């Protein structure tokens, strides 16, 4: 329908990296955040990115989605190195969930979700809002929420609505910045479960920045630990937890880490 869509890169094969970051360098003045960082995200996986405060998790996310231009290094998305002109085509295959939702406050929820559908897929407003309501129902929001404005919603509902907007264009890659921060444990667990169900149904890859150990245990296929300006280790959770590093040991084998491990325990939802 729109020729922009047909120009997009071909679908990559399974087990192929949809994002490949190589030698990434990010600096803010004298403050070096990343120094030669390498990281790959494979098709269909949920990659959890953890690290202490100030290790540049959010900066990494922003460099990949193109909100920050890296000082050096390459970011390949769907096997293409992104130049500025190609960015806008590939960006439509991204869905980004910002930490505080970033819902447009002057639009109600169905308009929030319908906006990219109207602008990019060139649907009529009626069709777009119909699809938007399906998306809102998909993320588990009740029908009356569609006409509510973001300011009247609870934190959990904002997160769900923001997820619906991130999913609006059926992205190949979903970026989530602390999706469960500020949610109560029940809401956070429900969000993890929702993410898994949608990933299994829609087959997108997820780049998940989080502090939430429960989310790591419940939802992530692999975990990347950012430390010392690079990716210290990236592997399955069990292997990462065995890494001989002080921060990693404190993080995964501290009291909270052990609690999360226990609760994930035998009924781990890795399926």
């Amino acid at each position: 329908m729109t020729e922009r869509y047909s120009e997009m890169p071909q679908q990559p094969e399974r087990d192929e990296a949809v994002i490949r970051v190589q030698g990434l360098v990010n600096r803010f003045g004298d403050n070096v955040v990343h120094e030669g960082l390498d990281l790959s995200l494979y098709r269909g996986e949920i990659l959890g990115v953890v690290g202490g405060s100030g290790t540049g998790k959010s900066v990494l996310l922003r460099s990949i989605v193109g909100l920050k231009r890296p000082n050096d290094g390459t970011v390949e998305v769907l096997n293409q190195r992104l130049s500025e002109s190609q960015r806008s085509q590939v960006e439509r295959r991204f869905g980004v969930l910002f930490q505080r939702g970033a819902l447009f406050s002057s639009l109600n929820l169905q308009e929030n979700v319908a906006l990219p559908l109207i602008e990019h897929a060139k649907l009529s407003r009626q069709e777009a809002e119909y699809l938007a309501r399906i998306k809102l129902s998909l993320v588990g929001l009740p029908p009356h929420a569609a006409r509510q404005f973001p300011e009247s919603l609870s934190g959990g509902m904002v997160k769900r609505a923001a997820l619906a907007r991130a999913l609006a264009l059926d992205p190949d890659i979903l970026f989530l910045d602390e999706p469960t921060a500020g949610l109560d444990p029940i809401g956070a667990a429900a969000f993890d479960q929702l993410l898994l169900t949608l990933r299994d149904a829609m087959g997108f890859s997820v780049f998940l920045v989080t502090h939430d150990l429960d989310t790591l245990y419940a939802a992530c296929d692999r975990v990347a630990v950012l430390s010392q300006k690079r990716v210290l280790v990236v592997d399955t959770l069990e292997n990462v937890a065995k890494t001989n590093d002080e921060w990693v040991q404190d993080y995964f084998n501290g009291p909270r880490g052990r609690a999360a491990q226990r609760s994930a325990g035998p009924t781990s939802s890795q399926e």
Partner: protein
Amino acid sequence: MPNEWITQQGERVSLHGEWTLRHYAELKRALQQQGQLSSASLSLPGFEELDTAGAALIVELLGVEKTKQIGDWANDLPQVQQALLIRIAEAMDAPLDSPPPRPNRISEALATVGQQMVALGSQQRQLLAFIGLVLATFTSLLFRPRHWRITATVAHIQQSGLNAVPIVALLTFMVGAVVAFLGATVLQDFGATVYTIDLVAFSFLREFGVLLAAILLAGRTASAFTAQLGAMKSNEEIDALKTLGLDPIELLVLPRVMAMLISLPLLAFVGMLSGLVGGAVVATLSLDISVSQFITTLQKDVSVTHFLVGLSKAPVFAFVIAVIGCLEGFKVSGSAQSVGAHTTSSVVQAIFMVILIDALAALFFMEMGW
């Protein structure tokens, strides 16, 4: 009817191809052309691509119940696509829309008028209550110098007073020049060009100096107060102050009110002088009235009463502007949008009140013969 998405072979209709958002409109058209499809004869051999938009169309076609049992009859369909269809069917099972009730236009209009009136009344009541609160706090702190917030007050004097001097001086200078030109044009017909001096002097000492300064501060400072306090309110800083046992009126409002009470009279004085200078420049350059003649006439014709009448309004304006700016800041709730709305409201109210009070004062002074 064979096409990219739907093929019909005898009784069997099969769906295939890319059922995605990018083909949504074409898919809808194709389905319409196809007309009634009996779902019994449908086969789904697997789609090249399927996304939520395409899945929604298929669920519409099949119905929710049949889609949920898709595993029983569409074995060829890949697992991921089955899962997506089932998930979308579940999502569409719930009622999707709850349209808002459509009320009567006329009754709605009447209700809006009523609400506006009630809001106006309560706004004035709130303003009076807030003024009372500020005055009460002020008197309670008057003899407790330890609670005077000197640093904050001085900072606000700098922000809203000193920093506003250039703009006030420039503006009143230009208006002074304009008034002089205007007076010269009209008075020339009577051969009374020299009375231009009186015109500029009377208008600036009694009205324009203080009025222009007040209107400028209403735009510049009332908005700043509302934005500052509104940002604090939406960040819960004001609630934090209260829980720490501190009084936001004492800490935030009084320094601002005091700063305005000191700044505006000084700015009004600057405005008067600058307006007179503007008039004098025009008089000298284009009306052949020398500077010394201008000053002599000023001394002879214009009594100091006019200056005092003008200046007496300044503290009233200052108080009203500061109080409205602060009150609107406290009314902010939640979002950043609310900060913007209340900032606009505070500027409009402040300018309105300034002009209203000025008109009433003019009447009063005229009746008193001052």
